[in-house]
């Protein structure tokens, strides 16, 4: 028995077996699936056919996995431009599910699934959860929004597929979430990391000590979060926190997930082929280099996606994981290429603001970045919600807090920032995701 199979035996959940496929078999499978999906996209989707024809690479030119780089990219605006059904490769009668993203500009983007697509989606989520050490017998609370958003239903099917008991609370109603978590003996929580931070704060206010509950695992995703947030979550709630990755355009949550090593997220690359490219030039970069993640669906039927630009900045970790999975890993996504703000010529990432705030209070309050332009000059304001833990009865103490945050931000960002303390819950939240940046600068 070779080393990979031994590792599979240790990990022991049968659903995880494909994670340990020997590399040569995995590459063969990927090539075979890539050829099929490119042929499907060319045959059924006008946009893909036109693009391939104009770049001179047709499906029969794909003879190895490296030939993938010869195909043109697909972007989010392609989904908007073909709204609603222009990228479907299956007739509507074979589509069993539609999801749509809350569009920030104009029309939403629509994604479709055949029954087989739903089954694949469920299977990758089962592998995510199994990799987090969850199994039959766990009680999983799914507090992602249910509905058009892929988070809720995706996690729901995955949890059922695993054989867990699902508590489909959807988002909102923090007090009820906490009550059910406690009364039902919930062992695992699925939601956005920001929402779980909110539940931690609210539980403390209600006098519920999360550390004394059966809750032991959290699977958090749908927005970038940091190692310091993980440390804070784990310390305050006593759980093991996992990062899960996905996007509707590819399938929803479950494109990748951490294993218990917590050293990057394994991509389920038997279904989603990852590449890293230079975000400026689009040139493919070798494993280990940081760049933009580009994904190609290898088995999707209703809506295949060829070289989709995720805008997420990461790298493929070059070494094998100690867990023994042969699936390559990406680094945790700290930022997106379009998250980057340029303020007075300086690159600013919201995650930098987050780490500065964590340094000050040891807690992560909700915050929002507001950008305006006054007399031709960019102004950056960071609005920070005063939590009950941060609040002090003395004006001087609050002013000190304000100026400490201010100097920490000035130091981290290298630009002058205005800090405003605002009332708790005054920053709007949607789908459990906080809206981090409001840009009111007119171009």
């Amino acid at each position, binding site marked *: 028995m070779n080393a990979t199979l031994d590792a599979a035996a240790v990990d022991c959940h049968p659903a995880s077996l494909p994670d340990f496929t020997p590399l040569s078999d995995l590459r063969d499978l990927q090539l075979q699936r890539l050829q099929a999906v490119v042929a499907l996209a060319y045959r059924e989707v006008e946009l893909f056919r036109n693009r391939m024809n104009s770049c001179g690479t047709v499906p029969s030119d794909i003879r190895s996995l490296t030939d993938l780089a010869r195909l043109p990219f697909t972007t989010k605006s392609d989904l908007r431009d073909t709204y609603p059904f222009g990228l479907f490769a299956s007739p509507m009668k074979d589509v069993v599910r539609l999801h749509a993203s809350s569009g920030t500009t104009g029309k939403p983007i629509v994604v479709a699934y055949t029954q087989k697509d739903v089954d694949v989606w469920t299977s990758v989520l089962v592998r995510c959860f199994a990799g987090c050490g969850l199994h039959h017998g766990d009680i999983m609370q799914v507090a992602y929004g249910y509905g058009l958003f892929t988070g809720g239903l995706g996690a729901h099917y995955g949890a059922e597929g695993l054989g867990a008991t699902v508590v489909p609370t959807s988002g909102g109603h923090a007090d009820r979430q906490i009550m059910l978590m406690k009364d039902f003996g919930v062992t695992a929580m699925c939601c956005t990391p920001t929402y779980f931070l909110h539940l931690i704060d609210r539980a403390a206010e209600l006098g519920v000590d999360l550390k004394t509950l059966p809750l032991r695992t959290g699977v958090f995703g749908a927005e970038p979060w940091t190692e310091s947030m993980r440390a804070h979550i784990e310390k305050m709630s006593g759980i093991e926190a996992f990062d899960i990755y996905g996007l509707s355009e590819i399938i929803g949550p479950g494109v990748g997930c951490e294993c218990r090593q917590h050293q990057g997220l394994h991509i389920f690359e038997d279904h989603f082929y990852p590449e890293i490219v230079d975000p400026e030039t689009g040139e493919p970069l070798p494993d280990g280099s940081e760049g933009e993640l580009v994904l190609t669906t290898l088995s999707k039927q209703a809506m295949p996606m060829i070289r989709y630009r995720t805008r997420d900045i990461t790298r493929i970790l070059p070494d094998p994981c100690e867990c023994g999975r042969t699936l390559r890993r990406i680094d945790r996504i700290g930022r997106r290429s379009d998250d980057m703000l340029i303020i007075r010529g300086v690159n600013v990432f919201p995650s930098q603001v987050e780490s500065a705030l964590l340094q000050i209070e040891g807690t992560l309050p909700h915050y929002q970045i507001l950008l305006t332009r006054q007399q031709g000059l960019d102004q950056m304001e960071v609005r920070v919600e*005063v939590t009950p833990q941060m*609040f002090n009865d*003395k*004006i001087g103490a*609050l002013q000190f807090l304000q100026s400490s945050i201010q100097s920490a931000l000035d130091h981290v960002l290298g630009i002058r920032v205005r800090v405003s303390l605002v*009332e*708790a819950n005054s920053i709007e939240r949607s789908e459990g995701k906080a809206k981090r940046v409001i840009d009111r600068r007119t171009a």
Partner: protein
Amino acid sequence: MKIQQISLFVENKPGHLAAPAQLLAEEGIDIRSLYLADTQQFGIVRMIVSDGRKAAAILEARGFAVKVTDVLAVEVADHPGGLAGILGVLDGIGINIEYMYAFPYSRDSGAILIFRFADLDEAITRLQTAGINLVTSKELLK
């Protein structure tokens, strides 16, 4: 001796005091005194109310940042020199005031001074030794 005061964080914007006031009104909580310490951008509302714990719980449940703080109340005569007299005593016994405010008191046409000290127990001892009469919560909320 100690009086419960509730403090609340509010932004310094039109209407931001109305919501908490409305919440307390709906629950039949009487506001005995209210003092606003403010900066250009935010303020702290300090209140002494008929039921401090209940008021704090109501506001917390609606997501307000609230603190319950113990303060001391001293009654002084409402005439020139009333405040100067008590502050002179405090100065003499060497205790530092974190903040204070005053409001009129109907009984005997006096005034109430509310004091917040860093070391409340020490302040109580010294004030009582100096012969200063501290108003109890029961008297104040009568």
